[in-house]
């Protein structure tokens, strides 16, 4: 029972941060129907921004993390407004391929740029709760992991509120139904896409800054995030925020329970196995629809 509780707690805690990564990627899938392969690089930018804001300016760590989220938002905005601009300003024949090539190239460029500018070493900031905490008498967990979990859920909650209750969210939902239809009724697609990218960048950077105290910052950190995020969106369903949330928890629980109850040597395999299972049984993902409806 104690093992079950520990596994469940750890799976839920990791799942919250996975969900934050997946939801950001899925927002772009939902709104623009393209994959942002620079999502991992935005996570990396968040991690480094938190590090330099904290060590370079002496800001309190909480403020440094907020600054990192703002930097991530600005970076996400630039990805769309500058590098994907052609999608909106000219008629690109194969927009999905175009976005894939551009964001993948950006991801490679940012990884190399990180090595060239900040070096290849590992960096870390102290977290907000640097102690191991006992929960329910038999569960032990890092305080920073709890902070990351709570922060992740708060941000996902905020995103859901924006989607459901604001004009921007209503605009995004219109885009998920029909890009052409949204244009016909006068919505500024480019502006809404920029805002979606900025929001996605903020979520990725938030994950990066919340997890630097646990996982460190280093130039290659974006690649595993991208890999996990892609599994999450496939499990949860392309373009669905709820799917990203559930996919994050499903992936983390699959990894933890697989490690605890099957074999710890294959921890990374369980997520891929879950993804393959979903692709076989329900290709649209748990929360995806065959019509690609999203947020």
């Amino acid at each position, binding site marked *: 029972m*104690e093992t079950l509780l520990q596994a469940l707690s750890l799976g839920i805690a990791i799942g919250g941060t996975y969900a934050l990564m997946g939801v950001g990627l899925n927002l772009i899938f939902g709104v623009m129907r393209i994959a942002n392969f620079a999502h991992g690089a935005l996570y990396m930018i968040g991690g480094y921004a938190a590090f330099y804001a904290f060590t370079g300016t002496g800001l309190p760590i909480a403020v440094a993390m907020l600054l990192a989220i703002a930097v991530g938002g600005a970076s996400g905005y630039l990805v769309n407004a500058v590098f994907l601009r052609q999608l909106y300003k000219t008629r690109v024949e194969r927009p999905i391929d175009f976005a894939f090539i551009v964001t993948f190239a950006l991801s490679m460029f940012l990884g190399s740029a990180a*090595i060239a500018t900040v070096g*290849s070493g590992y960096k870390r900031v102290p977290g907000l709760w640097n102690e191991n905490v006992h929960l329910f008498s038999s569960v032990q967990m890092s305080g920073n992991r709890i902070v990351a979990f709570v922060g992740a859920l708060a941000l996902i909650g905020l995103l859901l509120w924006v989607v459901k209750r604001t004009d921007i969210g209503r605009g995004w939902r219109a885009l998920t139904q029909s890009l052409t239809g949204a244009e016909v009724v006068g919505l500024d697609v480019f502006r809404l896409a920029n805002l979606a990218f900025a929001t996605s960048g903020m979520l990725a950077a938030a994950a990066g800054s919340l997890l630097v105290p646990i*996982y*460190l910052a280093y130039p*290659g950190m974006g*690649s595993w995030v991208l890999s996990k995020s892609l599994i999450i969106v496939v499990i949860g369903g392309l373009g669905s925020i709820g799917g990203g949330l559930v996919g994050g928890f499903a992936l983390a629980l699959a990894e933890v329970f697989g490690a605890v109850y099957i074999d*710890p040597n294959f*921890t990374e395999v369980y997520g891929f196995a879950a993804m393959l299972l979903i692709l076989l049984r329900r290709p649209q993902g748990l929360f995806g629809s065959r019509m690609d409806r999203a947020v």
Partner: protein
Amino acid sequence: MKKAAVFSTGTAMMLVSALMAAQGAMAQEKEPVVVGVISNLSGPESKLGTEAVGLAELYVEHINAKGGVDGRKFELVVGDNENNPDKFISLGKRFMQQRNVMGFTGTAGSGEMLAFEKAVKNTSVPICLSYTMGNKNVGPDLPSVFRIGPYNGQVAKLMANYLQKKEWKNVVVLAERSAFGTDFADALQALGNDDFKVDVVSYDPQAVDLSPMLVPVARQEVQPDAVVVVGYGPAIYTSAARIREAGIKSQIIGTWEFPEMPEFWSAAGDAGVGIMYSTFGISEATLTAGGKEFRKLFTDKFGREPVFYDYNEWDCLTAFTKAVEKTGSIDRETVSKAFGDLTFEGTSGEISFKQDPAPGAWNSSKAGTMFMLQMGKSGLPKGEIVEEIR
């Protein structure tokens, strides 16, 4: 007619003299000895790779100032393997074809080095390892690969001796799934018995969080006496923090000097206090005259004392020199064969490459002594020696 004959004779003599002079110059300018140093110059271990290149450049200055090798200049060709086996192979092959590289050395991980060794096996190009510890990096199937330095089989054996001496009977190895990590874990597990149980938990080299796989370790009926951590990836630096987060109170042991890196303390905090790790060293008493000369050259140039791997790398470069001197050739196959028969005085004793079938020992010249160190306080740059292990 007479004038013409005199002119012709004079011209002929001038031509002959010119030819003789040219021949003399050619005799003096033999083809250089070109050694390729392919290291990781841009990845996480780039500091080590950059230092290896600096050391090789120092060797070239030193040997050329002494007149070169058998009338030949010693030259280097440097490349960055980017921690990528494919890049390593393409770079190495290009160096051999375009730059006439005769042999290779450098600091590379066991995996990418093994891929390279297999890819160039048919060329018989000699490769001298000074840093690469994988058991599979040497062997009868790789006759042109030689090693000066420690290897996993040796470290595992010495560590098993130490663990058993401490009467630690239940050990878990957290091993990165790489040529280095898996190799070490397999070697240590092979030394296990009824009184010395070794369990291995492996993880992906890109993994950042070992927590899921630590839950079953923490929930064992009896916690292990020691958790040995082996790998190079990001998880190694956060391993101590994750082990303690999981509630595992066992002794943590590293298999190389990662606890000396600031990144480790930044991630580990108090969880790193008490961590033990193995390292190799060369004592002052064992330094040869050549070793003392190297130490002075190195210290003068870099402003720090050489570490163990620096001595090994210097000995590797010396081995190339000795093999060329012995054969008078820079033909790869000839030099490679000469390597196997070499016996020379290295920086800390005699170097020779014995064909020992023990895991990792083939064509390997052991050097230095293994020490177990322990970090008594948070943030220390170096631990205290707790034992010299034999």
